[in-house]
């Protein structure tokens, strides 16, 4: 997918004023946040988070070992494991597979890696018709290949009315107003594709090393059809998704749906192992796994390894005040919200996403809900550090910070500067208790007043008071 994270500031500013967008986000937020709260109350949350973190850390500590084990087990069961260094390699591999099996149409269930790679465009260019079958992704695809704005609810930025209008326009059927009816219409449209596709492409929530299986968590049932109806099934997922055992999978499944949608268990949960065997009624004849690096391997052993624990539940963005205000598109790449603010710079280059690690109040609402205890604000702070070390911050900001920190180490001069600063602010307040326009920080006073200081600094007053005593 084209990287547009460098335009974050302008897009975020516009989105911040979009109250209609915020209304849509807040409905979903209510659902996800309240749902999660209820669902996590059913388990020993802290113990499960700790256990989940430990599982993910174990895999990452010996990632190569678990990946090799996975490859062996999957191969034993008829699968083929392929490795992709980046998005371009994903596209090449999938197109090759499609050619080899004479594929004309590929049905897809949700895969973020396919977004990273821009796979749909590559398939189309190779003469293969890609059809998104996740309802949200389908809506975006028929709306001119729009980008998702949330990792589990890709069309969260659309209202029911907008979708009704889109369906009427694209499906050429009378407009529906009921969500149930609209969904039924989409299913009818998709049914023919399900039955005529030669290839299914899915993501993978987890890869289980001991059995060579892929685990899929979905709510719409499309994932089952994508992975079992066509003769070829291609799983595309990041190398970090491997976990050692089915037992580990059970632990992670206690926390993933609860954190994501507030469900005790998702509507569908599939563990797919091997190709179709003699006597099986369904399943693919050819099973491929494309395991992708695209920046992940470089994070192993780095300051950012914690980020690889991510299980893509979206709790961080659902709870993020900034995401809830600007939505996902402003982030400019595949992953929005706090996890995106960390992942995007790491995957597309720190210099291409300068603003993202700063687009957070560091309130740590994300860190406390993350099911695998990723310290997201700490990671954003580390990215900020790297920007400073590489001289990527604007000149003015660096100079101001340097001057301020020098003053703060020279108390006499600092006291003087504070004294003058307070006088200056009071002068700006023009005798009122607030400053309405502040030339040195116009973006503050554009949206709110700045309260005026009392008049003298604490240290001035303390000196006088003590002398009085």
């Amino acid at each position, binding site marked *: 997918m084209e990287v547009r994270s460098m335009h974050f500031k302008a897009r975020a500013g516009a989105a911040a004023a979009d109250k209609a967008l915020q209304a849509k986000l807040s409905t979903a937020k209510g659902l996800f946040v309240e749902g999660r709260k209820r669902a996590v109350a059913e388990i020993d949350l802290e113990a499960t988070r700790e256990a989940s973190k430990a599982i993910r850390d174990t895999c990452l500590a010996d990632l190569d070992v678990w990946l090799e084990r996975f490859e062996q087990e999957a191969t034993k069961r008829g699968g083929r494991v392929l490795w992709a260094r980046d998005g371009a390699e994903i596209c090449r591999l999938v197109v090759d597979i499609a050619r080899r099996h004479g594929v004309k149409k590929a049905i897809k269930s949700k895969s973020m890696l396919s977004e990273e790679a821009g796979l749909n465009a590559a398939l189309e260019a190779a003469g293969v018709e890609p059809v998104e079958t996740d309802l949200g992704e389908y809506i975006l695809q028929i709306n001119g290949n729009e980008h998702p704005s949330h990792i589990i609810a890709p069309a969260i930025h659309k209202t029911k009315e907008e979708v009704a209008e889109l369906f009427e326009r694209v499906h050429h059927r009378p407009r529906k107003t009921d969500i149930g009816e609209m969904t039924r219409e989409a299913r009818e449209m998709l049914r023919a594709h399900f039955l005529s596709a030669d290839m299914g492409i899915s993501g993978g929530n987890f890869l289980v090393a001991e059995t060579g299986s892929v685990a899929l968590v979905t709510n719409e049932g499309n994932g089952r059809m994508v992975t079992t109806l066509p003769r070829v099934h291609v799983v595309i997922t990041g190398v970090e998704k491997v976990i050692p055992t089915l037992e580990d999978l059970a632990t992670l499944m206690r926390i993933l749906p609860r954190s994501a949608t507030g469900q005790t268990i998702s509507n569908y949960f599939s563990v797919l192992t091997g190709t179709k065997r003699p006597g099986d009624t369904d399943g693919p004849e050819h099973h491929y796994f494309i395991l992708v690096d695209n920046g992940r391997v470089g994070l192993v052993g780095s300051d950012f390894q914690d980020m690889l624990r991510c299980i893509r539940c979206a709790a961080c963005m659902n709870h993020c005040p*900034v995401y809830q*205000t600007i939505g996902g598109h402003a982030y400019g790449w595949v992953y929005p919200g706090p996890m995106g603010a960390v992942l995007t710079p790491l995957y597309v280059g720190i210099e291409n996403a300068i603003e993202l690690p*700063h687009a957070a*109040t*560091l309130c740590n609402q994300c860190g406390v809900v993350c099911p695998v205890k990723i310290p997201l604000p700490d990671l954003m702070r580390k990215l900020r550090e790297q920007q400073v070390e590489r001289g990527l911050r604007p000149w003015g900001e660096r100079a101001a910070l340097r001057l301020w920190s020098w003053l703060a180490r020279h108390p006499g001069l*600092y006291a003087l500067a504070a004294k003058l600063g307070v006088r200056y602010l009071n002068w700006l307040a023009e005798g009122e208790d607030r400053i309405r326009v502040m030339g040195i920080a116009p973006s503050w006073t*554009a*949206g709110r007043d*700045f309260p005026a200081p009392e008049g003298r600094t604490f240290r001035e007053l303390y000196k006088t008071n003590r002398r009085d005593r």
Partner: protein
Amino acid sequence: MKVGLFVTCLVDLMRPRIGFAALRLLEAAGCEVVVPASQTCCGQPAWNSGDRRAARLLAEKMIAEFEGCDYIVAPSGSCVGTIRTHYPELFADDAAWLERAAALGSRTYELADFLATVAKLDKLPGDFTGTVTYHDSCSGLRELGVKAQPRALLAKLPGVTLTEMNGAEECCGFGGTFSVKFGEISARLAEKKCENMRASGADAVVLGDLGCMLNIEGKLRRLGDERTQVLHIAEVLAGEA
């Protein structure tokens, strides 16, 4: 009990009366309070901006100034969060400093936390009357676990009725330099906070951090609300509100 009062740079600059209120409360709790004259800033802005070197120099200064005290108290959750949670990260590669940083951190408290859990202050000088709602600041709440302490203290004031607002634990949008770098988002978050506060019907919002205070008061006034007071917990408890 010798307590070092870390006034914090924003209180020094903007609201000295909060510093004096804190002083009064600590004295009411029977502490011997010292206010090191050379104190400036804990280094939080540098740390959050990614300037590790500057943050470290300021942390060293802070540690040297305050390590002679039995306790260090500040009327700000985010400054205490910096000292307690982040100083050790700053000195991770320097055993001698790390020990000093950790020792200081373990004795550093947010004001309400200190008054409620360490000093166990029972008789408060404050006489505020009215309905208040408490805004949990992010660092205080999520780094230090300050939640019940300020509420317990407020409950000791007979004239105060506490009413909880929706989203009390949600960020007000300040975030230090975030408030200027992303002014539109910041102001929008402050607006949501103000809506929740006003819906609670409180006469005043009470809080424990200067950043939130400036942000919330600035937004309330811009929205034309001249009535709702924005008070630091120290002012309310010390009777200076």
